[in-house]
């Protein structure tokens, strides 16, 4: 019975886990690269003008349905706009929000977390209290409220994500920085007379970086979702710019007449969010010395 010898199972399992991790990293990275290419090359590869309306060819089904019009691969929405082209252009908004909002959130949240976790004292008390207050808000309601106040637009969405989600980084990085701060290498740096600010940046930051990278990837996925949710409640960007969330909101209404308007942007969103989180997990495991 292999199961009664724990060590053996662990070693066996570890090889399997590593193979699975490699595959996971490749699959998720591949999809993200595809989305990135689509976003960059949108003007050249999208088969139709994503904004062109044609009420005569509204709600055309996708290409495999007989008697549909050629050229509209994934069908059209109720206004006759090409679904595939809109998904390709929607990737732009999704990725801009993911990268800009994700990076800003990670930077601000991690900085506050590092300060709270390493310097402790009143800075920690202040930051931790703020985190407590933030955690008492329902995040989606907070986001909608902020957009209502800031006005719709790409910039507002990015600000809203940063304002709401910095706590995710602050909480985790604070705990990690506290653990690292208690270790011998930090104590020896202090004894050697290194200034505390430099210890934080040169000693502790590199050790919490793998966690930040994994969280950042996760946060990018979350940002894409937040943009979609805000588009869904009609508070995102102007309605004539194609976004996945806006398409989903439209598709939700006419789901019984034209399922493809909902299904295809939903698949794009689903795979992108899943890939961001799996890519982050995969990266973290790559960096994890125990699994390596």
């Amino acid at each position: 019975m292999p199961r009664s010898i724990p060590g053996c199972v662990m070693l066996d399992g570890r090889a399997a886990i590593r193979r699975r991790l490699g595959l996971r990293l490749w699959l998720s990275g591949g999809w993200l690269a595809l989305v990135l290419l689509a976003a960059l090359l949108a003007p050249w590869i999208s088969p139709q003008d994503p904004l062109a309306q044609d009420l005569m060819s509204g709600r055309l089904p996708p290409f495999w349905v007989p008697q549909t019009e050629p050229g509209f691969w994934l069908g059209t929405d109720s206004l006759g706009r090409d679904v595939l082209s809109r998904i390709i252009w929607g990737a732009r908004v999704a990725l801009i929000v993911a990268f800009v909002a994700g990076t800003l959130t990670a930077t601000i949240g991690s900085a506050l977390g590092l300060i709270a976790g390493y310097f402790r004292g009143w800075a920690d008390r202040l930051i931790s209290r703020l985190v407590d207050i933030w955690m008492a808000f329902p995040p989606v309601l907070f986001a909608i409220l902020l957009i209502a106040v800031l006005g719709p637009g790409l910039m507002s969405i990015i600000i809203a994500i940063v304002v709401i989600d910095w706590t995710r980084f602050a909480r985790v990085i604070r705990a990690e920085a506290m653990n690292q701060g208690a270790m011998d290498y930090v104590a020896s740096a202090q004894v050697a007379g290194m200034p505390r600010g430099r210890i934080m940046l040169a000693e502790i930051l590199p050790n919490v970086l793998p966690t930040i990278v994994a969280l950042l990837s996760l946060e990018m996925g979350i940002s894409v979702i937040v943009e979609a949710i805000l588009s869904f409640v009609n508070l995102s960007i102007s309605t004539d710019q194609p976004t996945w969330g806006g398409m989903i909101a439209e598709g939700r209404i006419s789901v019984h007449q034209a399922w493809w308007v909902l299904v295809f942007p939903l698949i794009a969103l689903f795979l992108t969010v899943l890939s961001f989180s799996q890519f982050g997990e995969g990266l973290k495991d790559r960096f994890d010395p125990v699994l390596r």
Partner: protein
Amino acid sequence: MLLLRTILARLATTAVTLFGVAVIVFVVIRVVPGNPIAMMLPPNATAADIDRLRALYGFDKSIPQQFLIWGWGVLHGDFGTSISLRQPVLGLVLGRLPATLELSVMALVMAVLLGGVAALTGTRKRGTRVEAGIDVANGVAMSVPDFLWGLLLIILFGVLVPVFQISGRVTPDLKLPFTTQFYLVESVLRLRFDLTADLLSHMFMPALALALPLAAIIGQLLKQSLKETMHLDYVTLTRTKGYGENHVILREALPNAILPTLTLIGVQFTFLIGGTVIVERLFSYEGLGNMAIDAVINRDLPLIQGIVIVFALLFTAVNLVVDMTYAALNPRLRHA
């Protein structure tokens, strides 16, 4: 004595948190440009109309003054009057809160059941393909948020195989004999199982959408704790006594492995309640979150404030209960 002091300290920090939430909402919705009264009135309203309405809702006073008046009212159970619905905020909020509570608790129950089954099966079949499959399913369920699960469920069980209702809390033309807003509880108590079935058919998909990410987190953590416990000496001892694997897992390992999961469920439950806002919107479920989004769209300041405070109260109350339960269950904390 010590427990009492801990409780008092926790209540004090809770009060500070609630105060902070109140200040932030209050300032955020007032400082930023945009006149709520102008948005309420038709474009042809006169300046006198606007002034009259501003005075009526107290918007002519300074922000600190407004906050004090509002805070005083809240402490006396008066949350103000909704601008868009022209009714007391407290009544509106209390009318919708039961719907959200029923949905959240239903989702929590589903998450615990799904996660528990996944963890126990994964432990029973550890090292096999079944466990690997459960791990992959957990990974996917965890990384996709409730909003997307809701949309997928709408396509699966609302359109492809239409077995559940995708919109509302209850079929509109049904006659409801209820005196409270806890429809599900009351339908069971009144033995009106036809209504229970209708309510559940509406609640199933939003609840499952909320439950899936939490189920995955529960499944993963509980399985991990169980597997660690399975290697402890006392478990091996039970096994040498000749007890079967099921007995060992359920009776010996589970009680010891469950504590971290319980704490996690408490924290995650507040995230789940937060998720009801968008999931209720998605399924047109008439709960607090759906009302909150309408309140924001209508710039209904008193209603927004009221709803946010109630959510914050709910979150802090859940956290308080979790901490107390944890202290009561964990002997090491009880005597510390």
